[in-house]
């Protein structure tokens, strides 16, 4: 396995998209499919969304999980503990946590829904796949902007 990974690292696309194997004289057929590796594939939205899904998932797991526990324990603890929770969570600089966290929730939800579509075997055609991958990113940013516009400016009006 190690040797195989090593060979994959040696593969680089040449100037005309042809493949040259570095440090080996082994013959390779350039028309054969390659193992999916970040250093070989041309970047596309599907790769970004795949990575975002994992990063936002990990972020939500840690920060979202902690926030949920904190909120519930504060309510259970009584009015004083809850008041201190509210003071911390409505402090204006805490938006540095809440805005990315809500974005992560929207991104993870939308890319998660995309996973369901792909789980049933649909949406793999290149233009369709690219379109919906892009839409999860656009949608998550849009929903985050709308939510915070409403929280910060909408409710007082």
């Amino acid at each position, binding site marked *: 396995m190690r040797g195989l990974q090593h060979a994959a690292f040696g593969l680089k696309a040449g100037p005309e998209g042809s493949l040259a194997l570095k440090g080996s004289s082994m013959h390779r057929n350039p028309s054969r499919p390659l193992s999916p590796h970040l250093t070989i594939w041309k970047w596309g939205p599907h790769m970004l969304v795949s990575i975002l899904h*994992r990063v936002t*998932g*990990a972020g*939500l*797991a840690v920060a*979202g*999980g*902690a926030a*949920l*526990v904190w909120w*519930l*324990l504060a*309510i*259970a603890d*009584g*009015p004083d503990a*809850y*008041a201190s929770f509210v003071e911390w969570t409505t402090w204006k600089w805490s938006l540095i946590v809440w805005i990315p966290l809500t974005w992560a*929730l929207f991104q993870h*939800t939308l890319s*998660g829904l995309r996973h*369901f579509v792909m*789980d049933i075997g649909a949406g793999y055609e290149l233009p369709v796949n690219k379109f919906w991958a892009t839409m999860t990113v656009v949608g998550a940013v849009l929903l985050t902007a709308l939510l915070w516009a409403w929280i910060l400016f909408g409710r007082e009006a």
Partner: protein
Amino acid sequence: MTMETPLARVRGLGAAGAGAHHWWLERSTSIATLLLLVWLAVSLLRLPSLDHFTLVQWLSGPLGAVPMLLLVVSVFWHLKLGLQVVVEDYVHDEGGKLFWILVINFLSVLGAALALFAVLKIAFTGNAG
């Protein structure tokens, strides 16, 4: 002597060595979490206020406490499964993998237990407690 080929022994097991079970649970908990988060958002929007008294009142009733307990279980179950996949995919050393999976299991059970305790306390003691 077994007639089973090595391929037949590993087919469908994947990096976690447990086949599609983990995958299926991850999907199930993701649907549950999504539905319960929609419930949470709608419930919070429908509450007349988000002060302590109102929240305790809400979580003392079965329509507040029970979905909240389910939400805690499904959120922590889902995040445990998700973090586990990340470790299985990126931590290649067996010892490190075991260590991080233990950490994830312990912390997600701890988080869930704390949250469940909080909801149960609110549900059983309410505003009198």
